[in-house]
């Protein structure tokens, strides 16, 4: 079984992303909201259960039951059949993983987690545009996934059309860890009207937002804000990134 899983566990190809200008929902500096994103690379698909099984097999300290409580809470991989066997759906996205475990996986691949800006920069792209954030139909499609309950298993990765960069599954499969998942909430970045509790309640989160109509982005940020590094929820996976290749 493990051999079979390992056989399937070919790492996702990295897709090169050309850097550019990007407007975060909560710019660190409201005076200069547009942020530069340097060129980088990102996995075409989220990390699968088979891929993660291969990782924990190679690095037993990341297996359920062996991982330090400091790095993953009790629900870590708890639905797996055994500590090394997900028990089916090898091509489904791995979930129930902590931020620490996701980072360790990427490091083992010689990669890293994408930053929030990198992840969101790529996630703006539809199948036909690099920046579809003003496309209401596209926003509506994304929103419909967020609005569905998460009790069903997520679909396998890599199905359906990639976005214009060639990246799959940023919307409609699982939430994904980013390196700086809670910087919006906890960063002491001098944001105007800045308050640690901002975003955590009511309309206060809209005060300094750059696009109050992008509900999907609000939901992603709210979701990330609710996390701690040890959390392992059933609808949260990840993909890896790497720095840009110098031309």
């Amino acid at each position, binding site marked *: 079984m493990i051999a079979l899983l390992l056989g399937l566990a070919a790492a996702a190809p990295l897709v090169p992303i050309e850097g550019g200008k990007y407007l975060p929902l909560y710019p660190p500096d409201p005076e200069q909201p547009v942020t530069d994103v340097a060129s980088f690379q990102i996995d075409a698909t989220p990390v699968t259960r088979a891929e993660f099984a291969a990782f924990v097999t190679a690095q037993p300290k990341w297996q359920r039951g062996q991982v330090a409580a400091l790095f993953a809470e009790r629900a870590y991989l708890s639905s797996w059949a055994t500590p090394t066997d997900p028990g089916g759906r090898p091509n489904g996205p791995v979930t129930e993983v902590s931020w620490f475990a996701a980072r360790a996986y990427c490091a083992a691949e010689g990669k890293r987690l994408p930053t929030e800006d990198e992840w969101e920069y790529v996630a703006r792209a539809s199948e036909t545009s690099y920046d579809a954030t003003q496309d209401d139909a596209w926003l509506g499609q994304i929103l*419909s996934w*967020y609005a569905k*309950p998460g*009790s069903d298993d997520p679909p396998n990765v890599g199905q359906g059309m990639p976005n214009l960069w060639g990246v799959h599954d940023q919307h409609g499969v699982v939430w994904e860890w980013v390196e700086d998942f809670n910087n919006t909430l906890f960063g002491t970045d001098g944001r105007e009207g800045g308050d640690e509790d901002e975003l955590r309640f009511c309309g206060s989160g809209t005060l300094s937002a750059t696009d109050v109509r992008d509900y999907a982005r609000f939901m992603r940020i*709210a979701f990330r804000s609710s996390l701690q590094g040890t959390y392992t*929820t059933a*609808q949260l996976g990840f993909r890896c990134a790497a720095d840009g290749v110098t031309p």
Partner: protein
Amino acid sequence: MSRYFFTPLLALALGCGAPAPTALAPTEAPTTGGSKAGDFGPPVGEPIQAELTNAPNVPAPTNRTAPAKVVVELEVVEKVMPISEGVDYTFWTFGGEVPGKFIRIRQGDTVEFHLQNHPDNKMPHNIDLHAVTGPGGGAASSFTAPGHASQFSFKALNAGLYVYHCATAPVGMHIANGMYGLILVEPPEGLPKVDREYYVMQGDFYTVGKYREKGLQPFDMQKAIEENATYVLFNGSEGALVGDNAITAEVGETVRLYVGNGGPNLVSSFHVIGEIFDKVYTEGGTFAQENVQTTLVPAGGATMLEFYVEAPGTYILVDHSIFRAFNKGALGMLKVDGDDALDIYSGKEVDSVYLADKAASSAPIAEASAAAAAGSLTKAQQIEAGKALFAGTCSTCHQADGTGVKGVFPPLAGSDYLMADGKRSIGIVLNGLSGPVKVNGEDYNSVMPPMSQLNDDEVANILTYVTNSWGNEGAAISASDVAGVRATSKAPAGAAH
């Protein structure tokens, strides 16, 4: 011990401590003292697990006389449920239904609140209870990822009926998906006892498909921003308070409704058709307004209202922004059982043709009436008055020319049945007639209602007219003839319907 310590203890033991209104100057309005007077000290006794109920039910009164520690455990569940027949929607719920569970505590209680976010949920959630004194109303302290639980505590310093809701960004969407409910903070002496209490909460919903378009309908952000609701509902679905799900009461009972409005956008003009609210604790506050027809319930607000029910039947709950009731679902029912109270409400007594200016002149009726009073009434005057009355009351069925409708409404013109027995005819006008009769050889089996709205003069004039028209020839019928029959026959109970 000094007086300092003794006084509050005594107050506690007596179960008072709150709104014993202080002696007031005549111009001063009564006051409870607000939150300043709402802290009755630390919780007394063992912690109590709060009884939580789904709408339309309300937990029993706390019946406590001292502040307690109350443990509330509320689980957030995201689930698909019907919003209308054949239409599903993904609701985000406090406790598995919309509206969320009703929480009932007493002023001065310390609430230990546990918010649990089910592991299958996709969203982080939190709760802002309007009954909380403190920044965010609990929202920041209860912000919880899926598969986690948060705990915070608050002391309920103000009595009243309060909305709670999720306040996670984007907050409008969390509320639009059903994340709201009510928490009642009883005043220390409790609320006046009533016979029935119900929980009704309005909310507006925004779906991509049109009203009642079948299938699983996703949330429509644009419609929500435009405040263009697809559904406006009581208790989260179109059937929640109608038919078998209607709330009920008996004649002679006092009903209290706890009415909330989760919004997210619309203000409710809450009204119960056919009832007048004897009391409305406007906006869920302490002092009641009396004798109110329609009360405004703000989005994110609530009201308590009470009414005594005198007459049986079905009372319709609506948002009197009335297109919402007829075209968006804002409709519920209160079914009241019990004996008729016809003196309070008769039901329909008369359904007559209204001819406006086409009607026969009523002058002959007035003339006959004056003549009768003067004792000079002639048969001709009776016939003229009877003709005018007949046109208004009788001609709908028996037709203007007295020929009736064959097989349905018996003829009066040339009618053997009519002319055979004058007293019987008087009795039929007074008391109605149902069951089989044979008229001019034809069988009839229908119902004539009693004409209980006519007085003796009017019945006499009508019958004089019909027994002396269209070929009929009879004697004049006098008011005293009618009075005689009226005295010896009795209208069946409820026949006025």
